[in-house]
């Protein structure tokens, strides 16, 4: 039996398999628009950066935009199915291996699209389970009790309090001011301040991934952007800070609110065990910023995980591996 853990994210999807393979791909799926495009590209379907590169010739889908499959969007459902198939291929499954797949998805998608996602996986694997991304991260870290996981993704920030069981709906929360929102804010701020320069969403996303920070800057953020075709240096420190910090108030508010709904006896333990995962955990200064911001309520301790890219897929893999055979048989 080959066990596979998948983290199906808005921005990136990651696979981690029991044969040691670990791969990731940007969550884009594209089908050639017509027979000319199909002939030129030589493929039925393209994924990730290759799909982005040829986007003009493709019907492109980013299926979990905003952290959820839009109701009735067949193209997005088909994209999830293709993406899961592609990730399983990347795991390098032998032709006759039996596989068991655990998939972590954004918390909101688990609520709204669980059946659609299970259907999409079932065409590739008979033994399957779907869980929320923050839960799979928690499982992988062994953080199963009195811990809050904050998974800062591109489409959503997912919150989940672990209390020794699979989290209930009221233990989980999702907000939409996540990575994509930072990109939009940064693009708007830069376009307003430097109307002469050409910025795109893709460009500002790369700036954020390289230089994103909250709180006091450790160094000035300087980038090169084209002005009338010629690259010019800009200092975007202040715009970067404002864009990244624009997501913080909603995160702080949600943390405080979720903890307040928890059993009072265990609130203190949760406050001291808040783990931040997802791509957004890479924002420089994040732990200190959130610790300072929550001081005015009850002090909280935040810790960013060391391997945010693979934490979700690794956790899902561990879940699939640990699942007792008698349960797997019935799934």
């Amino acid at each position, binding site marked *: 039996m080959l066990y596979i853990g998948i983290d199906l994210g808005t921005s990136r999807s990651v696979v981690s398999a029991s044969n040691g393979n670990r791969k990731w791909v940007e969550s884009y799926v594209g089908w050639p628009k017509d027979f000319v495009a199909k002939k030129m590209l030589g493929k039925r379907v393209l994924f990730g950066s290759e799909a982005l590169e040829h986007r003009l010739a493709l019907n492109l889908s980013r299926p979990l935009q905003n952290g959820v499959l839009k109701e009735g969007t067949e193209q997005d459902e088909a994209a999830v199915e293709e993406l899961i198939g592609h990730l399983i291929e990347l795991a390098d499954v032998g032709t006759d291996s039996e596989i068991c797949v655990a998939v972590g998805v954004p918390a909101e998608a688990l609520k709204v699209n669980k059946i659609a996602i299970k259907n999409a996986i079932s065409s590739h694997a008979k033994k399957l389970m779907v869980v929320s991304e923050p839960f799979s991260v928690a499982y992988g870290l062994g953080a199963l009790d009195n811990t809050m996981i904050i998974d800062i993704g591109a489409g959503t920030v997912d919150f989940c309090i672990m209390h*020794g069981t699979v989290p209930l709906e009221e233990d989980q929360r999702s907000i939409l001011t996540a990575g994509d929102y930072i990109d939009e804010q940064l693009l708007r701020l830069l376009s307003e301040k430097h109307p002469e320069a050409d910025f795109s969403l893709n460009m500002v996303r790369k700036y954020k991934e390289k230089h994103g920070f909250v709180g006091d800057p450790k160094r000035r953020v300087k980038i090169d952007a084209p002005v009338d075709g010629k690259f010019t240096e800009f200092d975007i420190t202040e715009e970067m800070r404002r864009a990244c910090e624009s997501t913080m108030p909603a995160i702080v508010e949600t943390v405080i609110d979720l903890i307040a709904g*928890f059993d009072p006896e265990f609130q203190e333990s949760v406050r001291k065990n808040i783990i931040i995962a997802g791509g957004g955990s890479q924002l420089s200064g994040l732990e200190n910023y959130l610790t300072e911001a929550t001081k005015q309520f009850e002090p909280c301790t935040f810790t960013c995980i060391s391997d945010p890219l693979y934490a979700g897929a690794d956790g899902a893999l561990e879940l699939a591996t640990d699942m007792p055979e008698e349960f797997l048989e019935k*799934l």
Partner: protein
Amino acid sequence: MHKSTSTKNKVLRGVYEDNAGIPRTDFGKRRPSNPKQQHAKGHKAIVIVLLGLLSVFGINVRLTLDDSRGPVAMPAQNAISPSHLTNPLFISQEVWDGHLENDPTAITAPAYMPGNDIVTVGDYDAMLTGLDMPMADLFDLKIGTIVIDPGHGGIDPGAMGHQGLKEKDISLDIARKLQDKLTRTGRYRVLLTRDEDRKVYLKERVAFAKDNNADLFISIHANALPTEASSLNYVETYYFGPYSDKRTLEIAEKENHDSDYAIGDFRKIIAKIGDTMKTEESKDLANAIHRKLYSGLKSHNQDLTDAGSKTGPFVVLLGVEVPSVLVEVSCISNMAEETRLSKPEYRDDIADFLKTGILDYLDQREHRSPREGGQINYVFKQEK
């Protein structure tokens, strides 16, 4: 971190149960829910369960609506225990009489009363229209996506001020600011029907809301009055319905210009006029927005006239299938107001008042109690 074997086993069982569709039995360390909310949910649930039972058993049952005697004094809650449900489709006389209040095994249910006027179950529209709670509450409907519609755009400038300020620019800027403010709450997906200066037909605006599964729709406009009335400054908020005065009709005619609907389309959407839920929610939304907008703007302009929150026959509001309002945020024909509108800070204030109104409405939805005006009471009777 360390995980104990028993915790791990419990979690693995939970994942299995979740994925196998088995009801959960372990709820960990959650605080008990607010008993008041539980009680309200119980009320909603039992109405739905009873309606479900009726249709599942396929028995021809009648709903009896008592309006002949006016409101009837009843105990606040009646109770039905499983032992009283020997025939689950019939609620006995002792239940009407409220004799079961002290039964510890009782489950709560709304009060039902016998009466004279008969409607069939299939015609449950009538019941929903007279329900003592908003229909959106009955079905526990959530708001996820808010669509903001900046009026006019492109070759259609909308109203113009004496100094050249255009309605299309004002509405777009306020809409963008409002989008930003609402998005920052982290609770809603907020979309604009146009994010640039381009012409968008009313039909396209409606389609945009539909395609994006909008749950709320807010159309932003600015008023313009004839020259002889240019000293006036109005603020008013509309939801779909018949016009109440001639001026409303004139405004609707202006805003409906270039609707791009064919007569055939219009016939289809006009059939939706009786959408009770949309109307009651739109009214609440319009009232909440208008209250905040007027009181906020009054601090900038003491002469501001409150034209109220009211109904008007606006095509864009009719086509959208969810709670929807059209806000005339200001009068661009008033010169002092036009000067204020030209300042970004003032437009930011307007967006802020709109945001507060919308959030007030959403907050009220979460905490509101049953509508005033007494209970409408129903009885289920088995038809021979």
